[in-house]
């Protein structure tokens, strides 16, 4: 789907432009931007984009929701929109009605294992759970002792939450479930597992990273056309041009990988192996791009980009932080590599060429 046709994403983009301007947020030490922004997003139905109307959501398509996430990345949005969308998506798979307010989800990484006990309580610990501290509810994928997966809705105040911040200054917390009684718990769909949940999260983060890279490119190009050194615009130096060309390349690769993976997940006809390749590759490639792109964007900006007052860090540090969520690039690379090897050399090209 082209963003131009995606009205949901356009709505989001408009709200971000009005209420999540990077410079305004950066200058506002009191966080007074936060409540109006979330209110506007909620009123537009965006946090529950992926929840059917019967469950209290706005029933957008996966593709439309993915467009929202790209836009959120371009804005380096510091509220749990992606997390609430993902939580809503997970709850919908469990046919659980969605509550209002900020949500997040578990698993946030491949080591998160939550147990559904015989008495229908949840036990376990999850690390690096984005925005847990700001969430009212948590959508959880849990497994019983027979490894059968269930989806649960948990009130955040029932959990122990150890607070910490990621590189970008957003919450990434440790959540401990100590025989927590969920608000609701239902069986997960057939075939749904930890990997399915992580892949969806990985694609969400890939889109956000790609979006932030688009913005890094834009503000770096603009800065290079303004800043003068050695008596000319720095954009006229071949070294700067080539650096920006590389940044454009990384941004383009991230964009291509992320949107292709989103399209693969949005297409019900995509074979499972192809979806895995797409989603894992997106997270790997976007994360690799984040490091290179952030380094170039900072290099082009020089000292000014290193200040807290400049908005550049809003994009660079979030892009770097997002690499860690829902499986790092190293994790997905090992998993992808193992699959490729297990399938054998002669199956590699058919897999790559499957879409």
């Amino acid at each position, binding site marked *: 789907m*082209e963003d131009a046709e995606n009205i949901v994403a356009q709505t989001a983009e408009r709200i971000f432009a009005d209420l999540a301007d990077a410079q305004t947020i950066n200058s506002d030490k009191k966080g007074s931007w936060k409540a109006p922004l979330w209110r506007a997003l909620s009123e537009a139905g965006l946090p529950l984009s992926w929840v059917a109307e019967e469950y209290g959501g706005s029933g957008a398509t996966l593709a439309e929701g993915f467009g929202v996430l790209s836009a959120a990345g371009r804005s380096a949005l510091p509220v749990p929109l992606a997390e609430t969308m993902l939580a809503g998506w997970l709850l919908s798979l469990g046919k659980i009605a969605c509550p209002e307010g900020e949500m997040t989800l578990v698993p946030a990484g491949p080591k998160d294992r939550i147990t559904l006990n015989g008495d229908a309580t949840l036990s376990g610990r999850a690390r690096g759970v984005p925005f847990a501290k700001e969430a009212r509810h948590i959508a959880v994928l849990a497994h019983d002792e027979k490894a059968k997966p269930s989806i649960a809705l948990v009130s955040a105040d029932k959990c122990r939450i150890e607070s910490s911040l990621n590189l970008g200054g957003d919450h990434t917390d440790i959540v401990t479930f100590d025989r927590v009684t969920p608000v609701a718990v239902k069986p997960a769909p057939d075939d749904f597992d930890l990997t399915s949940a992580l892949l969806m999260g990985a694609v969400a983060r890939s889109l956000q990273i790609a979006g932030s890279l*688009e913005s890094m*490119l*834009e503000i770096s*190009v*603009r800065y*290079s*056309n303004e800043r003068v050194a050695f008596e000319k615009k720095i*954009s*006229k130096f*071949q070294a*700067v*041009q*080539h650096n*920006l*060309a*590389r940044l*454009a*390349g990384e*941004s*383009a*690769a991230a*964009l*291509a*990988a992320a*949107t*292709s993976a*989103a*399209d*693969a997940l949005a*297409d019900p006809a995509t074979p499972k192996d192809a979806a895995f*390749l*797409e989603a*894992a*590759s*997106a997270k*790997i*490639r976007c994360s*690799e791009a984040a490091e290179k792109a952030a380094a170039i964007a900072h290099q082009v900006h020089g000292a000014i980009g290193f200040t807290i007052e400049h908005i550049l860090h809003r994009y660079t540090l979030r892009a770097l932080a997002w690499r860690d969520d829902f499986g790092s*690039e*190293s994790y*997905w*690379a*090992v*998993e*992808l*590599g*193992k699959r*490729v*090897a*297990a399938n*054998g*050399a*002669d199956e*590699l*090209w058919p897999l*790559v*060429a499957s*879409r």
Partner: protein
Amino acid sequence: MTAALRFDPIRLPPECVKLRQEVRAFLAEEIAAGTFDPHKPNREDSDAPEFSRRVGARGWLGMTWPRKYGGHERTFLERYVVTEEMRVANAPTRRFFVADRQSGPVLLKYANERIKMDILPRICRGEVCFAIGMSEPNSGSDLFAAKTRATKADGGFLINGTKIWTSSAHIADYMIAIFRTSPSTKENRRHGLTQFLVDMKTPGIKVNPIGQITGQFEFNEVVFTDAFIPEDHVLGEIDGAWKQATSELAYERSGPERFLETYYVLTELVRAVGPSPDTRAAEGIGRLVAQLHTMRRMSVSVAGMLQAGKEPVVEASIVKDIGTIWEQQLPHRVRDLAAFVDADVTNHETLENQLAFAMKTAPKLTIQGGTTEVLRGIIARGLGLR
């Protein structure tokens, strides 16, 4: 956005899936018949004329061209599928590749009807081989420094000078070349070059093969001494080749051949590490596959833009820039990852031989058809920096 770079996801339509199966079946037959060995990229494949004809007979040359010229009016995406399958199989495409990719489209656009009716159907049948005469001894990346002269003569032009690094000139039937018809002007240093169709059988053309570090003789020096080219072999505007060069090079910049040149070593690595690699090898393979997949999706996306009638010069340049650097480094990464592979695995020697050839091939990948430096300049221009 300053630069509206777009790489929309393309879902290959069902006809592509079907076509891919046909191409694979065809290639499997050719391999079985001994036409080529997919594990040996380092053979001299300069003369596989029969293979070319069979590819043509399948309708896989001139795929996107009008039927009246022997083409098949199929999509760029279908052409893409054929190209990537051929490349991945290491099929001997040299004889028809340039004609199909570059020369045919130039003729379609700039040649007169008689020439089009004469040559294009033969390209589609896989009967003719083309070369491209751009570089000269003192003009490499800087095409507009070309000095080989085309002097007006009765009914045509006399060519004098030397082209160099001309791939396949030793087996080519035709060359599309740029020659100097006027000096450049102060206002426009790109002025004064004209594009010509050259019949390689013309008297006064001498082809001297140049050995490569790979051991192959793939490119050549081509010396013109009063070689006569008839007037109607001018392609496009006299003195105006520079206007034609940009769009033409777009064809060159983003095809699957721009990141698959050394792909075979990755397949062979996967074979060598076996079904249960350690974390080190698994991660390395996973990253390489993710990078490859991403470039391919970018490249497919560019094919989609070509199909939609766009001229994605910047996007295509990005694919080539990233792609050629990747395929250049690939043999070195594969060597690293294969460092602990047992010398007794069955494909050890194949892998070693492939790595050696790929490493020798590697340096040219970021030079030929637009260097890294030239590509980044194009991208920078697209970003509004120059």
